[in-house]
């Protein structure tokens, strides 16, 4: 059986950063991964802006709608609706290899090379000190880890009136990208009516992104405003985990092994063994190591822990997920303004309810310009015949903005995971999830959404309707193996070590005891770095 000093399972955000910390410390590391590869690598998208591609490229259907229009689905506003054909490999084989059954929860998981980071929206929020403490992490070390990670991946942000909400205490950042026409207008209007917004308790600022804007990195260029953010990573200006893994694979002390689906671990003395399935042969296989680091996502690590402990510790786990509502809005002042070649698909502005700073239940709103996701994704929402709906939407489209509202989440008895036997599946089991919000949670979320939408109207942005995605369909899962200072089954100690093991660590969001409204990815990266540091300390 192959043996390594350190094994990191997973190549997503947390796996990439944990492996980087170990490799840079000179350790011999193996990364095990299913690693579904991108068939469009190298990129099939020419290096032109969105408008130029639409007007000139006869092969554009390959990346805009996919071969045989595989990216076109009818009446689908749910799970993965924003995942384009060139990123669809992130979902390949998920239903077969890691099935999840639920009537109330529809998460997106990935077995792709780079994990969910393949389609990540690049938002990089620093949690507040209170939030870091509630999550269960060490505040000072996490603040320092944010800096380390920011220097590695490159973050853009703005020291504006909202920076205490957006950048927190972060020092290492580049300027935010220029705002496009829609956002400039909203932001100008916000500044004009700032006193009124202050009275309403709403604060608006630039969204921090893992995006190089003014200073390139080796192999990565600065952002080119092509509005092709949903389709390609040609200039590598936005950080994705596979970029870090690609770099690490060039180093002699990292061995990358793909085609491995991790199922469970065992320990004997100081040696940990990770068992799994070779996805090519469908046969069992295993690797040994001194330290095992799970970075397969909160649901993936839950599966592995449940299989590994099931006989001794029973098996119902809690979990968390940010509830999400998106709201298509229109900006009438920008109707009929023509296409904008220099545009951005990522979130550009985010709003906060400042008077909630001390509340545990919070929400944030992020604004996205709508252009490159094309009319075919929204045309079905118009209750008119297609021939009349087309010119109407064509006229309105320059004024369409999408507002995404994300809510915090905390554990309740109605958010649980169990592993059930199912011999028809490759792993012989499936995860079953229940996710229900309490009335109080629903009411609080609705009230905050309405406050935001009322505020948006003051900027000349008018909400059309609120669309609540299925729970889990858009973002972020956590809390399956929570941090605890006392030893308990299915809990993680403050260093990231799973209780009941000697050498098994969890570097993803599984230990987070609370999920703030601000997206967790930046904290996930900081936690992965800290966990890897803790592993090194234990040596």
């Amino acid at each position, binding site marked *: 059986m192959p043996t390594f000093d350190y094994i990191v399972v997973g190549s997503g955000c947390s796996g990439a950063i944990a492996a980087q910390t170990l490799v840079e410390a000179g350790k011999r590391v193996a990364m095990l991964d299913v690693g579904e590869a991108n068939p469009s690598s190298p990129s099939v998208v020419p290096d032109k802006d969105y*408008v130029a591609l*639409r*007007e*000139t*490229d*006869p092969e*554009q*259907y390959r990346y*805009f*709608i996919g*071969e*045989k*229009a*595989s990216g*076109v689905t*009818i*009446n689908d506003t749910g799970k993965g609706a924003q995942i384009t054909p060139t990123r669809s490999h992130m979902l390949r084989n998920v239903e077969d290899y890691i099935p999840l059954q639920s009537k109330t929860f529809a998460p997106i998981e990935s077995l792709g090379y780079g994990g969910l980071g393949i389609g990540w929206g690049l938002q990089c929020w620093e949690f507040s000190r209170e939030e870091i403490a509630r999550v269960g992490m060490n505040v000072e070390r996490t603040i320092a880890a944010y800096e380390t990670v920011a220097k590695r991946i490159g973050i853009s942000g703005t020291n504006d009136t909202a920076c205490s909400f957006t950048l927190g205490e972060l020092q290492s950042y580049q300027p935010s990208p220029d705002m496009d026409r829609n956002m400039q207008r909203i932001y100008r209007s916000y500044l004009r009516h700032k006193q009124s917004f202050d009275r309403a308790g709403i604060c608006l600022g630039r969204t921090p992104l893992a995006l190089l804007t003014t200073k390139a990195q080796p192999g990565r260029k600065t952002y080119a405003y092509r509005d092709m953010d949903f389709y390609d990573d040609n200039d590598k200006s936005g950080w994705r985990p596979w970029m870090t893994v690609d770099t690490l694979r060039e180093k002699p002390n990292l061995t990358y092994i793909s085609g491995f689906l991790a199922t469970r671990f065992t320990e004997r003395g100081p040696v940990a063994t990770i068992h799994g399935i070779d996805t090519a042969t469908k046969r069992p296989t295993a690797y040994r190591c001194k330290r095992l680091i799970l970075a397969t996502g909160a649901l993936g690590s839950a599966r592995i822990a449940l299989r590994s402990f099931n006989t001794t510790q029973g098996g119902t786990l809690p979990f968390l997920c940010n509830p999400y509502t998106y709201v298509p809005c229109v900006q009438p002042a920008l*109707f*009929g*303004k*023509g*296409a*904008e070649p220099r545009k951005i698909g990522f979130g550009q502005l985010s709003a906060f309810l400042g008077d909630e700073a001390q509340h545990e239940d919070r929400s944030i709103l992020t604004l996205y310009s709508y*252009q490159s996701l*094309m*009319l*075919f994704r929204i*045309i*079905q929402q*118009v*209750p*008119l*015949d*297609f*021939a*009349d*709906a*087309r*010119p*109407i939407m*064509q*006229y309105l*489209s*320059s004024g369409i903005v999408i507002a995404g509202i994300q809510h915090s989440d905390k554990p309740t008895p109605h958010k649980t995971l169990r592993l059930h036997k199912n011999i028809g599946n490759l792993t012989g089991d499936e995860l079953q999830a229940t996710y229900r919000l309490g009335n109080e949670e629903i009411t609080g979320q609705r009230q905050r959404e309405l406050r935001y939408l009322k505020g948006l109207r003051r900027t000349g942005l008018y909400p059309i309707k609120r669309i609540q995605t299925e729970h889990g369909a858009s973002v972020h899962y956590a809390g399956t193996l929570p941090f605890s200072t006392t030893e308990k089954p299915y809990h993680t100690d403050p260093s990231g070590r799973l209780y009941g093991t000697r050498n098994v660590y969890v570097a993803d969001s599984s230990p987070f005891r609370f999920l703030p409204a601000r997206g967790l990815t930046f904290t996930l990266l900081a936690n992965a770095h800290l966990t890897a540091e803790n592993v090194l300390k234990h040596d």
Partner: protein
Amino acid sequence: MEQLLETEAAALSHYLVGDKPTKAIKILYREAVAARHDTRREKAFDVAVRHPTLLPYLDAYDAWFRPSSQLRQRLHLMFSILEATPEFAADFLPSKRSAWYMLILGLLGIRGILRLAVGGLIVKVWGL
């Protein structure tokens, strides 16, 4: 079957953008339909393709009452293919228009509602 799909593509394209599809668009449409393994033929869709003058009315009716009908699915498919084609980019990309264009759009909206009413009648009378 190939001929049938080409006729279908021509009818849908003409309805959506007022123009014939190119050979490449017909091939894309054919391949996309084949990949969906949708061999059924709903009566309303069949009638709409055989009598393209009825397309706007049946489409308007389905937009309200049968959003997942075969007609809506095929129209949406052709809409997506046309949108991802340089020849028709100008029909889909945002274009500069004066505020007066809103009036025309208002009229289009009213026409859409009238089409819905006529579509309802057609569906009832023809039993579609």
